[in-house]
């Protein structure tokens, strides 16, 4: 096995060097991608150093440490694979539209007072908006930049690095998330103790463990990103989330029983957004969005499962909205208060107002507005 691992390390070293060679030189690299290329080179160098250490360090030649050697090798190769498939692919396949989406993301970050360096944006995504926080790469679907109703998702993705990156400007934000997680953990731990004392419902106890795990590992992160989006963009974020749910949701009340899910149920995300809209002073808009949300659920005949309220206690959703509000304020970001939205937030909120005035005619207005906006952002 040691011989095999040395061969595998040699192969990985060769691949890492080949990957580095795929990064275009200055004459072929879009200016917006320079930070990404620098980051990729640095990450590849770190991986190469790690592989050489595993190969050459005498302690890792000791058969007693072979498990650790294999574990470290797997980890480095996993990181290289992510670099290859996301970062190098984005750099190597850059598209003319990337220039505009980088201007757009830069303008959003400036408008909201984003507290860290903006990510590099790419139209590479084959699925939906997503971000690789550690590399500073935000991917969006190719056509999305020509439309307005889902631009809100950029704001959600900008939330992820605030949680993941180690940066002094983010301490207070993460502190609020940590306090919330501790509260959620305490809530479910108390519920588990209660059920263990008073019932023989082992199935319920197991589900409570699953939900506690989901909240701490994944859900609180997704909620905080949603709420970051709402507080910095305003009602357009909630409209956009409703729009996405209409397109993709099979059951807005779906809660896991055994398996961990990456996202909380859509109903809970909308309810958290409603709490946040009220905190931000958008009571009227909240009422309008809530009415449409109820109409959608009724049309689709979604019904709440018996476990839903146990998995998603409203007290946690209310606290989430408050905790994220404090967290976003602590970042020093520009909040989208009523009447005080920046130009991009105002445009995205106006888009929803126009949409509801006359949904059938919206595309015509939208194309005109996107064209004007692209011209203005290029000359800015």
């Amino acid at each position, binding site marked *: 096995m040691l011989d095999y691992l040395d061969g595998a390390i040699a192969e990985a070293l060769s691949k890492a060097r080949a990957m580095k060679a795929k990064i275009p030189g200055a004459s072929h690299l879009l200016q917006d991608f320079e930070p990404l290329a620098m980051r990729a080179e640095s990450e590849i160098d770190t991986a190469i150093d790690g592989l050489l250490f595993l190969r050459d*360090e*005498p*302690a*890792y030649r*000791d058969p*007693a*440490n072979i*498990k*650790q050697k294999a*574990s*470290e090798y*797997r*980890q480095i190769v*996993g*990181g290289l*694979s*992510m670099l290859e*498939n996301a970062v190098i692919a984005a750099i190597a396949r850059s598209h003319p539209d990337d220039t505009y989406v980088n201007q757009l993301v830069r303008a959003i970050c400036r408008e909201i007072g984003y507290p860290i360096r903006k990510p590099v944006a790419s139209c590479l995504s084959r*699925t*939906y*908006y*997503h*971000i*690789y*926080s*550690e590399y500073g790469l935000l991917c969006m679907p190719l056509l999305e930049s020509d439309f307005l109703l889902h631009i809100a998702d950029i704001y959600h*993705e900008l939330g*992820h690095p605030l*949680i*993941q990156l180690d940066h002094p400007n983010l301490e207070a934000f*993460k*502190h609020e*998330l*940590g*306090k919330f*997680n*501790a509260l959620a*953990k305490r809530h479910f731990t108390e519920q588990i103790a209660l059920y263990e004392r008073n019932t023989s419902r082992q199935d319920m106890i197991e589900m409570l*463990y699953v939900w*506690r*795990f989901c909240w*701490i*590992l*994944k859900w609180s*992160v*997704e909620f905080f*990103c949603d709420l970051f989006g709402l507080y910095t963009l305003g009602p357009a974020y909630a409209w956009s989330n409703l729009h*996405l749910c209409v397109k*993709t949701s099979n059951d807005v009340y779906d809660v896991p029983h055994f398996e961990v899910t*990456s*996202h909380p149920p859509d109903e809970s995300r909308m309810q958290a957004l409603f709490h946040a809209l009220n905190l931000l002073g958008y009571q009227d808009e909240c009422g309008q969005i809530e009415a449409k949300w109820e109409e959608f659920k009724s049309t689709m005949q979604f019904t709440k499962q018996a476990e839903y309220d146990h998995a998603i206690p409203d007290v946690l959703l209310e606290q989430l909205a408050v905790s994220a509000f404090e967290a976003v304020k602590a970042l020093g970001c520009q909040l989208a208060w009523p009447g005080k939205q920046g130009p991009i937030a105002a445009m995205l909120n106006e888009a929803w107002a126009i949409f509801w005035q006359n949904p059938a005619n919206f595309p015509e207005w939208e194309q005109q507005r996107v064209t004007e906006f692209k011209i203005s952002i290029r000359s800015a």
Partner: protein
Amino acid sequence: MSKIGVNTNIFQVTGKYMSLINEYIVSRRSQAMPVDARKQAEVVSLFKRISDDQNIEPPIQMLSAIIERDLRSQRRQPKQFLRKLVDNLSKGDGSEETLHELEVVVQALDTKHSEALAKIKGE
């Protein structure tokens, strides 16, 4: 609603702490790579924070949740397991039993690390 953002976070956090523990195990077992005092203190501090229910650092809360869930699935008591590990590490115990307990933790993190990578790649 991509799964990538949240899974890159899990991938990064589990990877970082797996490496720290792996390196500690290797240096404990090897004459060639002695444990330095700073690394020893870092590992002890890590497990003290993981076993602290009041901890409010999100990455540590994540690790704690992963380890607890894994230990429960093996019908082990997370609190007792972690308390004993902290005691042994604090005493500088480098016995095979302690190193094996650390390997149990690495295995739990490794599983989540691999799962996160698979989800990032859309598998």
